[in-house]
């Protein structure tokens, strides 16, 4: 077990997120959300990355429920926080099995930068889209987003190959 303190900090933050998401949620969702801290901590400290995917999956019902019942900004922020914490835990998990020479610190800075940029744009985008939401057909919105995701993936792949 390596980097127990950073892993514990990530786990405590995850627990806080779980508590916030599962407030007034049905019991199974709450239970899954709270229990997801166990695989998260185990995965981060022991370098078992599939456990992190399990933790995120266990948190997903609470996130979906939050998106249905609360404001889009709040749901998107919660999702972003969950992603950020999972990414940090993933970084710690990778470092648990390999000696680190300044990689973790630098990578953590970059993940934080990515999360901060995403947070700023997420808040802006969700607030802007709230006014459009009632007038848009969900099927059209889904198709548009799907096309957008495909285009983004294609563009990123071409960039990589170049």
């Amino acid at each position, binding site marked *: 077990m390596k980097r127990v303190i950073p892993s514990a900090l990530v786990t405590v933050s995850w627990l806080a997120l779980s508590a916030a998401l599962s407030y007034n949620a049905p019991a199974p969702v709450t239970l899954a959300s709270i229990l997801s801290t166990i695989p998260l901590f185990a995965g981060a400290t022991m370098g078992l990355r599939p456990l992190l*995917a399990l933790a995120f999956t266990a948190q997903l019902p609470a*996130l*979906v429920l939050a*998106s*249905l019942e609360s404001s*889009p*900004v709040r*749901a*998107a*922020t919660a*999702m*972003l926080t969950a*992603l950020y914490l999972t*990414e940090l835990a*993933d970084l710690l998990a*990778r*470092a648990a099995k*390999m*000696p*680190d*020479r*300044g*990689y*973790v*610190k*630098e*990578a953590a800075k*970059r*993940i934080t*930068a*990515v*999360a901060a*940029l*995403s947070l700023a*744009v*997420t808040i802006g*985008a*969700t607030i802007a*889209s709230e006014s459009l*939401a009632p007038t*848009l057909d*969900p*099927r059209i*919105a*889904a198709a548009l*987003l*799907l096309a*957008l*995701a495909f285009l*983004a*993936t294609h563009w*990123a*792949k071409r*960039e*990589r*190959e170049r």
Partner: protein
Amino acid sequence: MRSPQSRCRKATRVTAKGTLYLTLTLALLLLATALENLRPLALTVPLALMAGFSSLFHPKASLKVEREVEKNRAVAGDWVRVKLLISSSEPVLVEVRDRVHRGWVERGSNESLLWLQGSEELSYEVHLQRRGVCELGPARLVLSDPLRLWEEEWVCGEPVEVYVLPKLLAARGLGLGASYTGVWPGEVLSRRSGKGYEFYGVREYAPGDELRRVNWRASARHGKLMVNERVEERVTDALIVVDAGLLGLLSAQEAEELVDAEASLAASLALHLLRSGNRVGLVLRGRESLWLRPAFGKRQLEAILYALARLEPGEPAPLDYALNMLTPYLLKPNAEFIAITPLLDAYVAESIFQLAPNYSVLVVSPNPFPQRERTAHRILEIERSNLIVKLGKVCRVIDWSPGSPLPRAARRAGRPARFSRTLGGARS
């Protein structure tokens, strides 16, 4: 020893995590469509943004790797130090893994997460516990975006082979009974009188004979000076046959241990025989079959040791066929034929049985079933004992438990019919 410079191969791919991000986004889109509610779409925004912004940190660097290996030949149990110099044209986050095949990294690490600014050195030591060919390299370097949704894998450098030669055992006490001898002085008793240690006979004194050879009792009896004659000791040819086939009855680890013991024994015998000036040849039966003509010297010893380092359990062709065809071609009649075989194959025993009238045959049989409790192994052990008894009638068979001293097992097997000095024994 530096590895040759070679270009790095590069491959880009989406990671499992990248696929999970995409799957999650699609799942949320489907959920929104199914519920006819746009609200779950809010969850896709951070996913897309995180992935997009992460791609902005895409590393663009040119990497170089140089590997320095302390030595390319070692004996089982040695350590070898490896240095890896990694350099990059730009600061980059990189995950390094240097491949180590057939060796244990016990000091340092062959993998690391690096924040690479300029160049970094990665050094580690490999414990070469077992005989074989240890491959070091190629190095795999992974560059990725911060979230590791994409990764760029660089495979750099050609693998360096380190030959791990077998450990040498005390192989004294095995007598050679060959009646074929060469012209050079050695350790095998010839049929001629000359310089040696074994008593040959008594003859009349001739001018030039050493005074210390005078047999005073015989001189008194005959009334003239008589001198002792000794049996001349000369070199011979020897062929060592190592049988590493038909080990399917054992587990992989047990088979490897048995082959290690056989290789150690063959290497020790070859060393002793070559040191005594004999010509030594080799026939191997394993995953790869190989044979070497009998020859003298250090170069031959090196060739034998390298061949034994490569020996792995397996059976591409039956050994009995190779023995029947190769032995008359490689070995002169009445020379020394040494078979190292666990005697699990009755056909091999039959071949040795047929060779015995024409050669001085010595069979060393490492026991593959020491202290076995399973009935199947007991039956196999009985069959093996029968083969030993059968072969014991025509040649010397040493039943040897790997790990125990070989000279003790050789003493139990008795002396050869025409006993000479032991291999590297009495005089050394």
